[in-house]
């Protein structure tokens, strides 16, 4: 019987500082053992635990796409574990277990337009989703891909090289917005994500919306999506809750009878409406 608690060793091949505040780092990991690499398969939206023996472990959404060579996570320095992770150097070997949870509804998205709305550093699993959809074989399966991604300031936008490339790509309609332009002007829009979404008004007729961001952004995004005609069963959110196991046992990530780790992290807005507001 496999032991889900045992992390497998992964090497930190590359670390990228993603933002001006320098509290967001992307860790690109490769498996030390070939067998572990072969056993690891995931769908965008899922998450994994990074483990530092002696410090602990914590869950993070997977930011890489399945076809990419390395598994990557972008981690904000926020607590004891993430502070220790930010101290790690390239070449270090750490632990990882997963993947856990469910994923974005790619079956439903097939043949439809996809609208991605995201703010702040929760963009990670949506980066995974976008890279996955832009993949050579998959792009034709979906209709228009509209992405609105916002941050407080230009310096806080992650994955800048990719963003610049996507801006030029015919396969994706990208709108980057910041609360304050700060003097920069590369195709950036000044404004809050929900307002920009409202102005852009993507067609909801045959579209699925994926939303990920801080609670305040989500609260103001929902009314806009509703106004644009997105039904609750075509709006999906990825939630985060404190968790220790990732496999529905430690008891702390529940919202009503659902566990974010096992029944989520991706929920339809329709599902959330039927659950107690306990998140």
């Amino acid at each position, binding site marked *: 019987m496999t032991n889900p608690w*045992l992390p497998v*060793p992964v090497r930190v091949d590359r670390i990228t500082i993603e933002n001006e505040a320098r509290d967001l780092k992307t860790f690109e990991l490769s498996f030390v053992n070939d067998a572990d690499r072969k056993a690891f398969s995931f769908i965008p939206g899922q998450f994994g635990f990074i483990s530092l023996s002696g410090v602990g472990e914590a869950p993070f959404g997977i930011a890489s796409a399945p076809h990419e060579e390395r598994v990557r996570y972008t981690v904000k320095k926020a607590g004891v574990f993430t502070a220790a992770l930010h101290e790690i150097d390239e070449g270090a070997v750490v632990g990882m277990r997963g993947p856990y949870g469910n994923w974005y509804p790619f079956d439903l998205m097939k043949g439809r337009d996809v609208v991605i709305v995201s703010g702040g550093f929760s963009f990670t699993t949506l980066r995974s989703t976008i890279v996955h959809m832009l993949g050579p074989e998959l792009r034709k399966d979906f209709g228009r891909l509209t992405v609105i991604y916002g941050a407080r300031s230009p310096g806080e936008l992650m994955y800048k090289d990719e963003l610049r490339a996507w801006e030029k790509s015919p396969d994706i309609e990208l709108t980057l917005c910041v609360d304050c332009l700060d003097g920069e002007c590369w195709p950036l829009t000044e404004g809050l994500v929900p307002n920009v979404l409202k102005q852009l008004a993507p067609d909801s007729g045959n579209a699925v919306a994926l939303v990920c961001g801080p609670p305040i952004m989500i609260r103001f995004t929902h009314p806009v999506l509703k106004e644009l005609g997105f039904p609750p069963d075509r709006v999906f959110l990825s939630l985060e809750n404190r968790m*220790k196991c990732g496999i529905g046992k430690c008891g702390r990530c529940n919202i009503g009878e659902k566990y974010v780790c096992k029944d989520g992290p991706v929920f339809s807005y329709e599902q959330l409406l039927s659950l107690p507001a306990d998140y």
Partner: protein
Amino acid sequence: MTARLLPKKDLPGFIAALAKKQEVWAPVRIQSQEAARFSRIDRPEDICLDYLNTKLPVKELFFPQREVMFTFNPGERSSAQASAQVRERVVLGVRPCDAAALELFDKVFVDESKTASPLAESKTAGPLADPYYKERRDKTTLIGLACNAPGQACFCTATDGGPHSTRGLDLLLIDLGDRFLARPVTAKGEALAKGLARAKDKDISLADELAEEARATMDFAIELKQLQKSLDKAFDHEVWHRLSLPCVNCGVCTYVCPACHCFDVTDEEYKDSGARIRTWDSCQFSLFTRHASGHNPRPDGMSRMRNRTLHKFCYFPKTQDKVLCVGCGRCITECPAGIDLRETLETLRDTLS
């Protein structure tokens, strides 16, 4: 399966025979606390069978309060080695409520159900069973001890159990005075009792009478299916504020609960050894759900008390079709604020109906 008889004078010999093949665990009196606790038995005379119930439920033998999940070498960020595992054992003297709780634990720890996608795609997210719990469970045979005299706080008859219930057990012993009636429940239990004499009809009817008498002393009854339905719509009801007023969120109800399974995972490191540890945790503590960002979905005592009640009597039954409570009454006897779960449930029933 055939009921058998175990004369009390033969109990030491019966235990000694068991101990030849496996470890034997049973309640032992803790003098300082006037309580009994499950301990490894070396001498049959140490066993205490005149207890109402053990202070801590038998869950601690399957899900220890502190458990080393694996060890690692300090300084190495990734190395990990699974820790040593348990031996075959018999646990004797388990009360029916505690055994029933293990059935509920099985649903949590041995669940290998698939991860649910928002669209029910079919892909497994890997094995979800907990290997530590499962191994302990697989290697344990449970011999229960029926309750002829339930306590003041007991209410197992309201939670799908009973003082002579065999739920979760392999073999049930019923005290008939100078002898036990041994009722096998599983093949494992039948094998243990094989060498004993067959019980006579009058022994069996005496046991049935005792079961009826014990049951008759327990008068708390509540329609839990109905309550679950009302609770499902009661998240925002003001009754929770009233109910949680006396609660000090000390968490003792969760620690002594045979069905509470929540835990924390932490690392401990010493000079030359390190370990990842699992410890019992409580949903009554504010840190239980607090995010690294500082946001806390359950920031106050009311929301935590509400979650515990809803988890046991609404959320868990919704997914597993059983309440996450076996009516052992420990939370009632141990609560420093005098909260009686039976009264809580009655208040909820009366307020929400």
